[in-house]
């Protein structure tokens, strides 16, 4: 028997038979999700298929996050239609302000290690942080899953990215994700599953693993899975590792100890440079949000830079927490107060300005530094704006200075404000919900 990659193992279980990369298989789905951007069409197709009941309501979740609260009547009615469908079917439903779909799927335990999870959104690989196989599908696909709990898919070949070395102070998983997208390119992992392994993933907390898995979408990957080493969860799970000698389409190895903060320049997430080459660019606004970087540790990193200080005159900072739970935790520990006192504006948990369909659209010629994952032209709603991508710590330092810079450039006691990747994660909590994400 040949050795298997993580993707082959998870999909073999889902297919109820041993499958190999390149094969097309019918797979059983462990969970499925759709948002206000994709669920309405999926619900329509579900009805066209003659669907009455979803296959297993407990495994289906709908999230209002992309345009929530509704910016207009049309979207308000789509939201109402989703609410109704979820109520009729008894599915999980996350209303306005609960958070971003990918965050909620991990935080609320919809995905577990070894699962096959499919979502009608392109950043569904985010849940690969949990050692699961998450992939994005279209609305028609999702309708078929709602009806049958199954879908067909091609088992992807995997690319192994081995990460070694110790994390330098001030460098985060976002810097690594940007660096890797720059190296691999927007199509570099096309059709593939990216599997992260190596000693440097061990100290990463779940939040940072999510950042890493999230941006495999920007490499064109079908899924991104982080190996289970160092993953701590409040419940027991069976880790899925690749067999030694499993066949990979490509194997890359990076030493994180030499990494510096990185920035993606307009207008592509793979247009990545070390921060030294972006410093000094004047900015009008910062945004901390999205499924990539709006979790508690991201907000804490920003607060460490901004506490007791004020945004540069004429610069604004918008923050959309990844979920209500993140917002509440940040309220309790004083993070929100520090950020708000520094001049940050909070908007409800959700996608916020990331997708550019409502709040927070930049003006013509304005420059934004953002903790999100995509900076394609027009992404935040205005094709005449310039969007730079960076870690939350770099966004915070930049809004303080009014130009792109890193924390060490603006904060005298920098070593206390710099993000640390190598903290030991908190001890497991007694419940199944995942704490402090």
């Amino acid at each position, binding site marked *: 028997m040949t050795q298997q990659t993580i993707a082959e193992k998870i999909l073999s279980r889902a297919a109820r038979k041993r499958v190999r990369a390149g094969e097309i298989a*019918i797979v059983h789905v462990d969970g499925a999700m759709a948002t206000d951007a994709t669920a309405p069409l999926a619900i329509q197709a579900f009805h066209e298929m003659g669907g009455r009941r979803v296959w297993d309501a407990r495994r289906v979740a709908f999230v209002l996050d992309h345009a929530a609260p509704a910016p207009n009547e049309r979207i308000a009615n789509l939201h109402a239609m989703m609410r109704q469908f979820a109520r009729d079917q008894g599915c999980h439903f996350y209303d306005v302000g609960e958070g971003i779909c990918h965050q909620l799927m991990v935080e609320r335990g919809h995905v577990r290690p070894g699962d096959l999870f499919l979502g009608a959104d392109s950043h569904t690989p985010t849940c690969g942080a949990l050692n699961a196989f998450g992939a994005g599908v279209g609305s028609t696909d999702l309708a*078929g899953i709602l009806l*049958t709990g199954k879908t067909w898919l091609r088992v992807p070949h995997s690319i192994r990215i081995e990460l070694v070395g110790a994390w330098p102070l001030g460098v985060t998983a976002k810097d690594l994700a940007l660096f890797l997208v720059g190296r691999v390119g927007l199509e570099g992992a096309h059709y593939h599953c990216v599997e992260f392994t190596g000693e440097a993933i061990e100290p990463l907390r779940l939040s940072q693993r999510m950042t890493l898995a999230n941006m495999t979408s920007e490499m064109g990957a079908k899924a991104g899975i982080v190996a289970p080493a160092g993953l701590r969860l409040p419940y027991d799970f069976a880790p899925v590792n690749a067999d030694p000698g499993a066949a990979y389409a490509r194997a890359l190895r990076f030493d994180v100890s030499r990494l510096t903060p990185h920035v993606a320049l307009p207008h592509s997430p793979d247009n990545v440079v070390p921060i030294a080459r972006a410093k000094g660019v004047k900015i009008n606004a910062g945004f901390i949000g999205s499924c990539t970087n709006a979790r508690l540790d991201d907000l804490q990193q920003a607060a460490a830079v901004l506490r007791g200080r004020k945004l540069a005159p004429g610069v604004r900072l918008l923050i959309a927490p990844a979920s209500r739970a993140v917002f509440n935790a940040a309220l309790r520990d004083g993070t929100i107060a520090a950020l708000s006192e520094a001049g940050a504006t909070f908007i409800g948990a959700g996608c916020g300005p990331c997708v550019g369909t409502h709040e927070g659209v930049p003006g013509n010629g304005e420059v934004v530094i953002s903790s999100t994952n995509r900076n394609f032209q027009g992404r935040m709603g205005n094709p005449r704006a310039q969007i730079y991508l960076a870690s939350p710590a770099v966004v915070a330092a930049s809004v303080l200075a009014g130009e792109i810079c890193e924390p060490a450039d603006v904060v005298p006691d920098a070593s206390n404000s710099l993000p640390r990747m190598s903290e030991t994660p908190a001890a497991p909590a007694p419940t199944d919900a995942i704490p402090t994400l």
Partner: protein
Amino acid sequence: MNVILGLAHVYDVNDVDTDRIIPGKYTKTLDVRELARHVLEDLDPTFAGRVRPGDVLVFGNNFGCGSSREQAPAAIKAAGVACVVARSFARIFYRNAINIGLPLIELAEAHDIANGHTVRVELQRGEVINCATGRVFRAAPMPAVMVDILRAGGLVNYLKQHGDYVIREI
């Protein structure tokens, strides 16, 4: 539908994106005949006028990259194309094509197929024969369930008929 016999239109071009398959400005319509009139317009303005029902398209790598719009395979299907052969397909395009009922086959080597050759495609066996030269090319066989989805005209109809994926042995 299991056996497709058609005239080849060959474009040895890589990375044909969904914008070149059907420009974004035409995708607002729900009328597939309108889509068919503009299919591949930016790549070859004469194609929509020349294509005949049952013809086969042959492309290079990464066909259908770009946006996830379902109108791209829908436009090709509406133009009467019976099958798309390419060295590789963009992932979302591939899924969308099967789900809307456009047959396609991934073939790493099909270099001797030229414009006007008659090709015979047998999806389930993963076989493409260039009838003009007699050469036989092998691809991965298409699983029965996908052939059935294509035969039904797409996923919506397939699930409407069967209510579930039906695994049948070949």
